[in-house]
C-alpha cells in the first residue's frame, strides 16, 4: 500500500474551500484502501502557504492544494486564472478549465516543463475578487478608487488599483480586520470567501463588483512522483481528482457564496454595486498592460493562445 502525504494551509473553518479538499481526501481514501491512502494535513499545521511549493519540490510532501494566486510569479502560466479582463469570462464558463479542456491541458503542459503535475484546477475559478470598502470610505465606482487605500495581495490587483489612482497597500491578513476597522485602509480586494472567513463583513459596508482578479485551487504533485505511481494507484487517486474537478468550485460558488454568504451579507446591510458596461470596458483597457506583461512572462504564443481559449475565441 502506498501512502501519499498531502497538505493545504486552508483550515476547515473555511467551509466553502474545505468542502473540496475534504471531499477529495475522502474519495481517494475509500477508492481502493489497499492500494493508496492519503495522509493529509490541513490548516497549515505542517507547512505554511509559502513553504508548500519548496516542500513539494524537495519531495518532502507528495501532494499539495494551492491557491493559484499565491504562486503566479513562480508558475507564471497560472496567472491566466487571475488576469483582469479575462476572469469574468472564465467565471461564466467553468467548462473551459475542466480537466481535458484545451486550456487546462495547455496550463498542465506548461507546468510539466517546471517538473510539476497539475491534477485538477477544481473545475473552474472561484467567484472573482471585488472591492469591499468601509462605511466611511465607500468605493461604488471606478472613480471612487482614486485616492483610496486599498489592501491587495496579488500583483495583478496591485497594477489595476494603481492604474485607477488608488494606493495599493500590503497588510498582513491577521491585521486586515483592524486595518479596516480603524481606517488604516479604506478597502480590500478580496473574494467573498475571505470576507466571510475573516469576519471582514463586520467592517465593510459596500462591495463594488468589479472583477479585478480571481484564483482557482489546484492539486499539484511533482511530475516524477506522479509518473512513478502504478496504474492502480493512479486510478485510486483519480477517483478523488474526478470528484474534485466536478464538485469543488461549483459547490463553493453556488452552495456557499450564492445561497448563503451573499444573502446573509445583504440581509445584514451590505450595499452592493454592480460594475456597468462602461466600467468593464475601462477595466479591460486599463488592464491591457497587465495582460501584456503576463504574456511577456509566459511567451507570446502560449500567452495569446491561453487568453483566446479563456475568452472562448479559440477551441
Amino acid at each position, binding site marked *: 500500500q502506498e501512502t501519499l502525504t498531502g497538505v493545504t494551509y486552508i483550515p476547515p473553518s473555511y467551509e466553502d474551500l474545505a468542502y473540496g479538499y475534504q471531499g477529495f481526501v475522502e474519495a481517494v481514501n475509500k477508492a481502493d484502501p489497499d492500494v493508496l491512502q492519503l495522509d493529509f494535513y490541513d490548516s497549515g499545521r505542517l507547512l505554511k502557504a509559502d513553504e508548500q511549493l519548496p516542500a513539494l519540490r524537495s519531495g518532502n510532501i507528495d501532494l499539495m492544494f494551492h491557491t493559484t494566486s499565491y504562486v503566479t510569479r513562480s508558475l507564471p502560466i497560472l496567472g491566466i486564472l487571475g488576469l483582469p479582463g479575462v476572469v469574468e469570462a472564465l467565471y461564466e464558463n467553468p467548462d473551459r478549465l475542466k480537466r481535458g479542456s484545451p486550456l487546462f491541458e495547455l496550463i498542465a503542459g506548461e507546468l510539466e516543463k517546471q517538473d510539476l503535475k497539475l491534477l485538477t484546477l477544481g473545475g473552474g475559478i472561484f467567484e472573482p475578487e471585488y472591492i469591499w470598502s468601509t462605511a466611511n470610505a465607500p468605493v461604488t465606482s471606478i472613480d471612487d478608487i482614486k485616492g483610496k487605500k486599498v489592501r491587495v495581495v496579488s500583483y495583478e490587483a496591485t497594477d489595476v488599483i494603481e492604474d485607477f489612482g488608488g494606493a495599493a497597500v500590503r497588510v498582513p491578513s491577521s491585521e486586515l480586520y483592524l486595518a479596516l476597522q480603524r481606517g*488604516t485602509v479604506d478597502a480590500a480586494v478580496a473574494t467573498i470567501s475571505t470576507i466571510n472567513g475573516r469576519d471582514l463583513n463586520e467592517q465593510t459596508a459596500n462591495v463594488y463588483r468589479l472583477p479585478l482578479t480571481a484564483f482557482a485551487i489546484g492539486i499539484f504533485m511533482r511530475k516524477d512522483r506522479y509518473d512513478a505511481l502504478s496504474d492502480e494507484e493512479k486510478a485510486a487517486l483519480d477517483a478523488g481528482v474526478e470528484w474534485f474537478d466536478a464538485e469543488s468550485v461549483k459547490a463553493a460558488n453556488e452552495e456557499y457564496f450564492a445561497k448563503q454568504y451573499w444573502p446573509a451579507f445583504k440581509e445584514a446591510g451590505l450595499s452592493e454595486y454592480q460594475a456597468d458596461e462602461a466600467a468593464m470596458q475601462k477595466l479591460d483597457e486599463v488592464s491591457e498592460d497587465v495582460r501584456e506583461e503576463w504574456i511577456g512572462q509566459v511567451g507570446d504564443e502560449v500567452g495569446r493562445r491561453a487568453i483566446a481559449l479563456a475568452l472562448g475565441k479559440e477551441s
Partner: protein
Amino acid sequence: MIEPIIVVAVMLGLIAIGAPIFLALGASGLLGLYMARGSMAFFFGPTSLFGQLNSFELLALPLFILMGNFLAATPVGKNLFHAAVAWLHWLRGSLAISTVGASAVFGAVSGVSIAGVAAVGSIAVPQMLERGYSRTIAAGSVVSSGALAMLIPPSVPLIIYGAVSSVSVADLFIGGIVPGIALATALALYLYIRVRIYPEEAPAYDGEAFTWGDRMRALGGIWHAIILIVFVLGAIYSGIATPSEAAAFGAFGAFVIAVVIFRALDFKGIVKVLGSTARISGAILLIMGCARIFGDYLNLVRVPDAITSALIGTGLPPEIVLILVMLVLVGLGMLVDAVSLIVVSVPILLPLILALGYDPLWFGIILVMNLEIAVITPPVGLNLYTLKAVVPTLRLEEIIRSVVPFVFVQFALLVVFVLFPSISLWLPNLVR
C-alpha cells in the same frame, strides 16, 4: 507512541546539559522527524523555521526591544518607578503591582505577549531589584503579566482563533476585556497577599515622607513615558499604523526621548543599542523558529490530535471533561507555541464544545487564557526566554521557578471562567 517520548526526553536532556534552548528544540524535533519519515523529513527543518519567522507580525518583537533599550539609557524608567513609590509607598509590593498595571496598559498597545515582556521587563526588573524586591517577585510579575497582551485587545491569538472558528473578531476582542482585567487583578491580588505573608520579598519604603509637592514633581518626571504611550496608542487607534507597525513608532519615539530630549546617547551609544537589540531579538527568534520544528514533528505524528481525541472518548460528565481539556491544553502548551496550539486544537475541540452546548466565543476566551499559561511554561515558553534575554542578570532557572505560583493563580482563574461561562460572556452580550 514511544517515539514522541524519546524525542521529549532528548529535548529535556539537552536543556539539562546546558545546550542552548534553540538547539534542544531544533535537534530533538529533527530527530523525531527523522524517526517518523527518514532523512527526507529533514527538509521540514528549514521550511518550518523560515515559515515561522517570515512574518510581519513578529516585527513587533525587535522593535519593542529597541524601544526598551533606548529607554533604558534614559532616566524614564527610574522616574516612572520613582513616581510609583511617591504615590503608592504605603502599599507593600506596590512596584510589582504597578508592573502588572503597566503590562495591562502595554497589552492595549501590543497583540503579542513577548513584546510586552521585552518592553516592560527591561525597565521594571532592574528597578525592582534595585529597591530590594526578591528576584522571583520581579521576574514572575513581569513574565506572567506580559501575557496580558494576548487577552487585552488588540490580540493576535484572538484574530487567529476568529479565523479558525468563524467567531466574530469584534466579539472576541470585547470578550477579552473582562478576563484580561480579571487576570490583571488576580495577579495583583496574589502579589499583595504574597508580600503580606513574606514581607522580606518587597521591602517597605523607609525613606523620607513624601509631600504633595514631591508627588506632583514625581509626576512631572514621567511625562515622556505618557507621551510615548499616547503616541503609540494614538498611532494604532487613529488608523495611522497597524499594531505591528506601531512598534516602530514606539522605537522612534524612544529614540527621540533618548537622543534628542535627554541626550543620553551619542553615535556610539546608538550603535550599541542597535547591536544588542539585534542579538537579543535574534536569540529569541531563533528559539521561536526551532520551537516550530519541534511543533511540526508533534503535528506530523499527530500527538495533539491523539491526546485530545482520547480525552473526548472518555464519556465523563461535561464539567470534568472541560477541566481535563484545560489540563491537556496546559500540557500541550508546554510543548507547542501559541499559534500551533490554536490551529491544531480548535478543529478537534470545538465540535466537542459545541456538542456540550457551550458558546464558541467563550471557548476562544478560555483558549487564550490557556495560552497565557502556555507562554510562561517551559520548555516552550517564550516569555521566559524573552525576559532572560532582556535582563541577562537573571538566571533562566530562577525565572522558571518564579512563574510556578503565577501558573497556579492563572489556572485557578481559568477554572472559574470555565465553570462560569457567563462571566466572560456578559460584556459581549451587552454590546451585541
